[in-house]
């Protein structure tokens, strides 16, 4: 059996792979935390426009330290800059963009993704202080909702499952999952394997996946650069 820990992609590599599917001119929302990394790997020659829930379209990277304007932040409350063509708007207009189907892609993290497209990414269900933010809005409305995630949890449990065990963020909303081992589409309530690392066998991949991986045509090698 493959040593998954030494084979798997880094978060940067997962983000890079997800970035390859963002088309020129796309309006994109990246969830706070890990998904924000996708912006770093925007494909040369393509221009994506990033939306943040708190009311900016077309923001750019963080300013240099000491140059922050704390009224100019993203949904993760990190300081950002503006690109030429940026716009400010209030929260209701911002979520009109989200719910109204105006974003081309939303890329989110996950605790669990089910073969039904259900996503759990907001609550571990273990008590403490619950906090949802914009996650439940983002899973509805974007033309394409994708997840980037390690293929398994820190304890090795599958994150791609038949049914989510944690509180749901949304029902039947995810259509593609970029993991540390594979690229998997969700179609008709099934996981359909599109790409996998060449170093891992289909059997080994299935062994760390909590639901059946279907194939529908050839499975490509998941090839990413060193990063």
């Amino acid at each position, binding site marked *: 059996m493959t040593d998954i820990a030494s084979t798997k992609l880094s978060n940067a590599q997962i983000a890079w792979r997800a970035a390859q599917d963002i088309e*020129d*001119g796309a*309006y994109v929302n990246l969830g706070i935390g890990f998904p924000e990394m996708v912006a770093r790997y925007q494909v040369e020659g393509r*221009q994506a*426009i990033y*939306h943040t829930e708190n009311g*900016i*379209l*077309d923001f750019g990277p963080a300013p240099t330290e000491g140059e922050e304007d704390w009224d100019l932040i993203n949904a993760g409350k990190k300081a950002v800059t*503006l*690109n*030429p*063509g*940026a*716009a*400010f*708007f209030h929260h*209701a*207009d911002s*979520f*009109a*963009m*989200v*719910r*109204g*189907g*105006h*974003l081309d892609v939303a890329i989110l993290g996950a605790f669990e993704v089910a073969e039904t497209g259900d996503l759990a990414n907001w609550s571990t269900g273990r008590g403490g202080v619950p906090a949802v933010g914009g996650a439940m809005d983002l899973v*509805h*409305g974007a033309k394409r909702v994708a997840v980037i995630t390690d293929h398994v949890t820190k304890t090795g449990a599958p994150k791609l499952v038949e049914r989510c065990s944690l509180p749901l963020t949304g029902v039947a909303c995810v259509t593609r999952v970029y993991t540390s081992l594979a690229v998997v589409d969700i179609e008709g309530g099934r996981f359909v394997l599109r790409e996998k690392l060449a170093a891992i066998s289909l059997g080994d991949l299935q062994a760390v996946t909590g639901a059946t991986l279907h194939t529908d045509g050839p499975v490509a090698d998941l090839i990413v650069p060193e990063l």
Partner: protein
Amino acid sequence: MDKTVASPADAVADIPDGASVMIGGFGGSGAPIELIHALIDAGPKNLTVINNNAGNGQVGLAAMIEAGMVAKLICSFPKSKDPRAFTERYLAGGIELELVPQGTLAERIRAGGAGIPAFYTPTSFGTDLAQDKPTAEFDGRGYVQERWLKADYSLVKAETADRHGNLTYRAAGRNFGPLMCAAAAVSIVQATRIVAPGEIDPEQVVTPGIFVKRLVRVEAPQQEEELNRAEAVYP
């Protein structure tokens, strides 16, 4: 990114027979005359048009109705100084009318762009215009359920646009423009000026570019009211 197309004709060329088309403007204020006239030249039939009014005189929406392109009109006030194009067809049974209170029309279009499939409003409760609509009581008051309104296309008149589609408007010409840009699958905007991204202050953008699909520059736009005062006829 550059959403500019070469001409009004190019901008509307793919609008097919049977399409739903929102058209901005309140009376002549904000009416995208050049886009409407380009659509008349293209000549698709059997359109459903959403506009506050029903045209005035023999230009713009009135000319479009006169050309027999409009099968159904969704509007709040199908009257004007010279409403003959609509009135004659309507009284002859040649055009379907869905009459919607003005605020409900605006809110339904806003809901269409905002992903809100239905909402409740006090407007029209207990009146003929609420017939056959679901009602509900909230905190002891009666309300009517209204559905979102979306369209395949919208035609909107802006003042300044940047190439990403960020827009400003001119005076009360703003009216339905921001709402219709958001509520149509393909929003088509004519602007007096098209500038480089960054030339509109981000604080002053009225319609963010995400709501705009196509832009066309119309440098010296015609004003419907002025055309009517000059008794213009299109085509």
